[in-house]
């Protein structure tokens, strides 16, 4: 537990806290993205999906046919009219796609390619007040990047959070490397941190980095990266590992592990931060787990969280006064021919990314915006999720498995329990499909959720209190501290195939409604 005096200035000494997490599991999948950045084909159409913002009821400001610039507000949240959502590109709103009961599914904007942005004026972040920054971010539609604990909904601008947390790494399956995502964006990132530090009661941002990172090789056992002169290099790990330390490729491997196996200076040497060094397996990269161990949320308190890449986007906006809605997204997964990083616009149409980069297969694979545990299913011609920095393409698993529950050896399947002999080769990467691997049952096995949840929370008891809608029990058991993505690994490991994240989300929605 950490009790921090708010008068202490973090610039005077580099303070840090170490957190060692013993529970959890890394799921190794095939299809790690190569460390190369590629510009995606220009996306003619981008779309904003209100479903990305859980709990927001969109109210349109502009209609079909309206001309927009990057940063023009398009809709706002019915519950909080100050929170606006803006267009990522300049162009024209061509279609508002509605679903059942006129629910807005997508707001499609034709990208005119001119990239004209609304000018909000550059900000002197050091001199700006909290209120100035709030107005600027709300006006340009950047506020939705700031989320909160409890509930993981968009932060309320009138709240005074006790801390702001940013996780500088992601341990989800096939997650992008944040050091690579933010390479070269030191000034933008620092500007974002400086701005966010103003909102926090502590006066700084809690930034959490991993103690060491696993450098992963793609499924051809090659580490593909762009070297210092911009050349694309493919290092063959296997042959290098056998060579002696003096040969070029073995030395290159070692220098790669040294260089990429630690969090980059962009994070560790930033100003206005309180550094947290986290060691452990997934979900160590989840900001909610980090908050729980460093500065847990009690009832009535609020902590704000921002994704590291979005911090840079906020910083860039404040420095330039214009919204540049571009981000790097990792295309990953076993069904991708060349997994790599793409430079895309927020709301990019996925066709432009998937096209020509999928392996030949008999059946259509599953396209996921996000990672394999918490992402949303999208269509091949769908659009990138607002908060996602990753796309995963997995094979569907709608086929029978003869005596699937009996055989101890199943090469394509992974189990965190040792009932399957997958534990014999711990470093293997899997081509997992979307098969449920069993049928849905009541809660039977105990202790398996606790094995993969590094929090002082009783997950099954909490989930049961959500199912019976017992709000007092939910509060007592810590519903203010946990969000569905923290339980995603529990859902993966569940023997009874329970819809864990869904149950918790229903519980969170109920508590938010009743206790707001």
């Amino acid at each position, binding site marked *: 537990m950490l009790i921090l005096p708010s008068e202490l200035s973090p610039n005077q000494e580099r303070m840090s806290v170490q957190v060692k997490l013993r529970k959890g599991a890394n799921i190794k999948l095939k299809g790690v993205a190569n460390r190369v950045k590629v510009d995606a084909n220009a996306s003619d159409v981008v779309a904003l999906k209100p479903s990305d913002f859980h709990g927001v009821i969109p109210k349109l400001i502009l209609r079909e046919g309206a001309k927009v610039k990057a940063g023009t507000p398009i809709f706002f949240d019915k519950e909080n009219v100050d929170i606006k959502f803006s267009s990522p590109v300049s162009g024209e709103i061509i279609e508002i796609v509605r679903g059942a009961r006129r629910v807005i599914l997508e707001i499609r904007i034709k990208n005119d390619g001119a990239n004209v942005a609304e000018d909000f004026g550059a900000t002197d972040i050091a001199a700006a007040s909290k209120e100035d920054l709030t107005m600027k971010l709300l006006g340009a539609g950047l506020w939705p990047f700031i989320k909160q604990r409890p509930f993981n909904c968009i932060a309320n601008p009138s709240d005074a959070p006790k801390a702001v947390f940013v996780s500088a790494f992601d341990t989800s399956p096939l997650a992008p490397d944040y050091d690579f995502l933010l390479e070269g964006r030191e000034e933008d990132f620092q500007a974002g941190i400086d701005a966010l530090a103003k909102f926090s009661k502590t006066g700084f941002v809690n930034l959490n980095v991993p103690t060491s990172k696993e450098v992963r090789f793609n499924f051809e056992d090659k580490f593909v990266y762009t070297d210092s002169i911009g050349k694309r290099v493919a290092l063959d790990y296997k042959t290098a590992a056998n060579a002696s330390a003096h040969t070029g490729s073995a030395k290159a491997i070692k220098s790669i592990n040294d260089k990429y196996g630690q969090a980059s200076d962009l994070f560790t040497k930033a100003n206005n931060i309180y550094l947290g060094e986290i060691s452990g397996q997934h979900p160590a990269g989840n900001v909610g787990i980090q908050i729980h161990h460093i500065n847990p949320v009690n009832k009535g308190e609020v902590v704000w969280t921002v994704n590291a890449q979005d911090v840079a986007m906020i910083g860039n906006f404040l420095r330039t006064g214009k919204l540049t809605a571009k981000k790097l997204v990792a295309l990953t997964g076993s069904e991708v021919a060349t997994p790599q990083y793409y430079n895309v616009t927020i709301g990019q149409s996925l066709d432009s990314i998937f096209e020509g980069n999928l392996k030949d297969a008999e059946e259509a694979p599953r396209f996921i915006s996000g990672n394999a545990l*918490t992402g949303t299913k999208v269509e091949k011609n769908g659009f990138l999720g607002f908060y996602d920095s990753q796309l995963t393409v997995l094979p569907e698993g709608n086929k029978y498995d003869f005596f699937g529950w009996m055989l101890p050896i199943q090469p394509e399947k992974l189990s965190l329990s040792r009932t399957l002999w997958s534990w014999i080769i711990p470093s293997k990467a899997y081509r997992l499909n979307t098969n449920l691997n069993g049928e849905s049952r009541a809660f039977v096995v105990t202790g398996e959720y606790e094995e993969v949840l590094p929090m002082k929370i009783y997950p099954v008891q909490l989930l049961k209190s959500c199912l019976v809608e017992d709000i007092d029990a939910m509060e007592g058991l810590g519903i203010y501290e946990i969000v569905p993505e923290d339980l995603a690994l529990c859902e993966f490991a569940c023997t009874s195939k329970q819809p864990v994240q869904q149950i918790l989300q229903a519980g969170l929605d109920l508590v938010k409604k009743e206790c707001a």
Partner: protein
Amino acid sequence: MKFLERLVDKMEPNFEKGGKYEKWFPLFDGFATFLFTPKHTTKKGVHIRDAVDLKRTMNTVIQALIPCLLFGIWNTGFQHYSALGLLEEFGFLDQILFGAIKVLPIVIVSYAVGLGVEFGFCIAKGHPIEEGFLVSGMLIPLIVPADTPLWMVAVATIFAVVFVKEVFGGTGMNILNPALTARAFLYFAYPKQLSGDKAWVNTELPDGYVQTESGKVLNELGQAVGQFDAMAGATQLSRFNASIGIYKEQGIDAGIAALDGAHSLLDSFLGLIPGSIGETSVVAILIGAGLLLHSGVASWKIMASGIFGAVFMTIIFNTAGMNPYMTVGPLEHLTAGGFMFGIVFMATDPVSAAQTEVGKVIYGFFIGLMTIMIRVFNPAYPEGIMLAILFMNVMSPLIDHYVVQGNIKDRLQRAKLHSLTH
């Protein structure tokens, strides 16, 4: 396998809603999912799922029970021929044959009756059959004496499945361990057949054999080939129990001397003693325990704290030493009776045990403690593990409640501390 898949696909519409055999869906589903893991894919939530499911978990437990079953089959025959002194006449294969003829029908009846009742409930309620009984069906035969009449096994199984599992809601909802309740039912409903010295070893003579008054066993040709052992049926625990009676009549020395007549520690460890079918061999149980612990299916905390609780209580009794039974040492207690079987296979049933990790330690400890206490203090029940586990099954929600309350209090305390300093 493609042909089987196509067959299942073709037959399925008949059993779904609106199909001709809609009512029999649980039966079809049970067989189809036995052959194949179904082709359901993830819809909402995580997109990939662990390969473990309840069938695989149950299958691991059944595999862990196989050593006990095999040993029990052999031991049934061994004890039978040993009691008649016919071990030279009837060798290893004969012993296995005798045991198989006695044991396998019990296994078949247990599964057939239990699954029959479960299918009946599923068809009546309209939900698919669940895997819970795969393990209970194997446990029930292993904890009854080999001579138990098959109709008794059937009645006990029906009682357990209906009143301990189905009325509570099926798999995952029971408070008590179903297999153990079946055994308790037999114990209390049919005490004469299932306790006392006659129940444990079958002493029927083979065809054509005769027994003389002096106890000699004569084969078909009239030769004296064996000797009837009247003490053969006494289990380890009943010998310990008997020492109390002897102590009361003849004093402490005679009581302790009577303990020497019990089976040796090595015999009771290996399992060459009379008892229920699967419970005697600690070696076989430990092999099963190894598989359960390694695969992560059973909790090591329950097993370890159970053994610790039993040893703890035994040492207290050894120190008090007020009657011969109290002088029985920890190793003797651990290897006698059904303690090891109970603590490894019964106490670790995840649904009826405590569900919090701290709770499991408390739960296991008290099972071990109470087993020894019931054994020593209660002259009517030689074995304590069954009642200790059933009692702690009832208490485990209470244990969990207080453990969870501790977590809730910690959270409130942290909030209070935080608001005081900020």
